[in-house]
């Protein structure tokens, strides 16, 4: 069984998935960040591979990606960094990046490297489900790499069912129709959306992402699903306090 699925089987609530950008703030921070997050007790770690044209990301992550690229990060290097600590990592790792990066790397080669690095899953926001199904499903499944798809408030019920069927690991539930909006409280509209999805009784567990930035919003999300993803808020914290601040950041979310 894929480690991510295992996680969701073992832990039914308050799963914390932290996203960070590889090579940011400094080129060599990747490994430290993973190990610090693991030490702080997060459940899942999502390593963003910086891209020149990150369509689906908000400005915080865009900026961190540009810095990381400027620092000299590459997919190759990010994977090397992860591989270098793979024996120390027990938390399931997910790689997030854009389809073109992996396409140029070579999809087969990419999956081989994921396996070699001990990575459990991927998020490729611009790889459509149909295309995945016809081109890559077998490749990923046979290598036991979970592919996690997204749903949004606009995703139709039919399509959600399809996502449910195709996603391994978890469904990335985009909390709202805004990637660039500032962190804000969760609105009634969003709550209705969360409830609507809960009532669908899907097979795949869900994590809520986008706009989750503190204990309050994390707790709120956890009322509806098994956990949540924090990205931009973590990047901003990292920028201000560096790797040393990670423990405190996570503590505050969990309120340990």
């Amino acid at each position: 069984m894929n480690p991510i699925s295992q996680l969701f089987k073992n832990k039914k609530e308050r799963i914390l998935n932290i996203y960070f950008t590889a090579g940011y703030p400094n080129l060599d921070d990747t490994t430290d960040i993973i190990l610090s997050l693991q030490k702080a007790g997060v459940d899942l770690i999502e390593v963003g591979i910086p891209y020149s044209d990150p369509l689906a990301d908000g400005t915080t992550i865009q900026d961190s990606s540009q810095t990381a690229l400027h620092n000299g990060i590459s997919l190759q290097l990010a994977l090397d960094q992860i591989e270098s600590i793979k024996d120390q990592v027990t938390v399931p790792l997910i790689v997030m990046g854009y389809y073109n990066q992996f396409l140029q790397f070579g999809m087969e080669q990419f999956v081989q490297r994921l396996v070699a690095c001990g990575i459990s899953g991927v998020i490729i926001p611009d790889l459509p489900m149909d295309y995945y199904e016809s081109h890559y499903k077998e490749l990923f499944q046979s290598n036991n790499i979970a592919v996690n798809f997204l749903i949004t408030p606009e995703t139709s019920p039919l399509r959600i069912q399809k996502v449910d069927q195709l996603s391994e690991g978890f469904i990335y539930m985009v909390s709202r129709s805004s990637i660039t909006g500032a962190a804000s409280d969760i609105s009634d509209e969003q709550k209705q959306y969360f409830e609507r999805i809960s009532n669908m009784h899907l097979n795949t567990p869900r994590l809520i992402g986008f706009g989750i930035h503190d204990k309050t919003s994390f707790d709120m999300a956890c009322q509806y699903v098994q956990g949540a993803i924090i990205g931009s808020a973590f990047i901003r914290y990292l920028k201000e306090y560096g790797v040393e601040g990670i423990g405190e950041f996570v503590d505050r979310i969990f309120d340990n």
Partner: protein
Amino acid sequence: MTNYKINKQGFYGKFGGAFIPEMLHANISNLQNQYLKIMEDPDFQRQFKKLLRDYVGRPTPLYFAERLSAHYNTQIYLKREDLCHTGAHKINNTIGQIILAQKLGKSRIIAETGAGQHGVATATVCALMGIECIIYMGEKDIERQAPNVSRMKMLGAEVRPAKSGSKTLKDATNEAIRDWIDNPVDTHYIIGSVVGPHPYPDMVARFQSVISEEIRYQLIDKTGKAYPDHIIACVGGGSNAAGAIYHYIEEKNCNIILCEAAGKGIDTDHSAATSILGSQGIIHGSLTILMQDQEGQITEPYSISAGLDYPGIGPLHAALIDGQRAEVHSVTDDEALKAGYQLSKLEGIIPALETAHAFAVLDKRSFDKDETVVINLSGRGDKDLKTYIAHL
């Protein structure tokens, strides 16, 4: 030749598709399902054709360029898209999309622009329909295409600078897509070329296909032949070229010549010659040819002409080039400027810098004396006067 026909999934052979994040899925799939139905509706067609005629000024003439023909010892006809309202072919598409947006019930329009022609054409149709309009434009392009920025403002549009990356067309497109992700319900995104996720390449090509529809009957009228021996167009994203060749793709005897911007030269790192410097990959939701490094990071292109300063080309063109159905030339800044000066002095027509790239082909290969050559004069050069004069 069936490879050049789009399939249900939006592919021309292996190129095309819709590689988009889930946040865009509802909008894009709605468009995919609706666009042909709406476009083929007689009511839509009536409205579209009427505006093309009375507002845009179609049909645009097919003009036999006597002095240019004599100079190059061949028979050159110019398709006068420069005479369209707002000065370029771009408005054929924005007229179509604004009507479509209305039928889709959208109340807010966004668009990207490079040269500003598409921005102006979008701002124009939004004014015409009384719809809110936001135009994303690279900070660098805002500087070099100042007249068009003023026009957009006059037309009541908001121009938002794209400050990331190369600060040009690619980045303006990224920003527009982000805006759309943020505003999935009320907003329609009017893409300005045959790029982006399916159905944009096909939809825009269909709106622009009025160009070759007209060339066809105008050419019969003038020469008795329905197709030219050569048809020449510049390629930024590829919409004017797509329009000009649309009805000729399956006509094997009609040679298609596409002109890319080589910038300072294909062996410098200041170029936008996608077909030579590019390789297969994804840009703005489409699998096509684009300029990228080994890691798949998209390269910052360069061209003197803001409308060709784009690292990709539309998937149809990728297919045409890949299948060797089209002949491609790369044209440097200097060659384009020279061609622009020459057309001005020989025919009294100042072409857009983008368009000037198409004319530069005349110095790159020869044509027979009695061959019919149609060049798509995609736009006028008013917006480029500063650049032209600076290099005179």
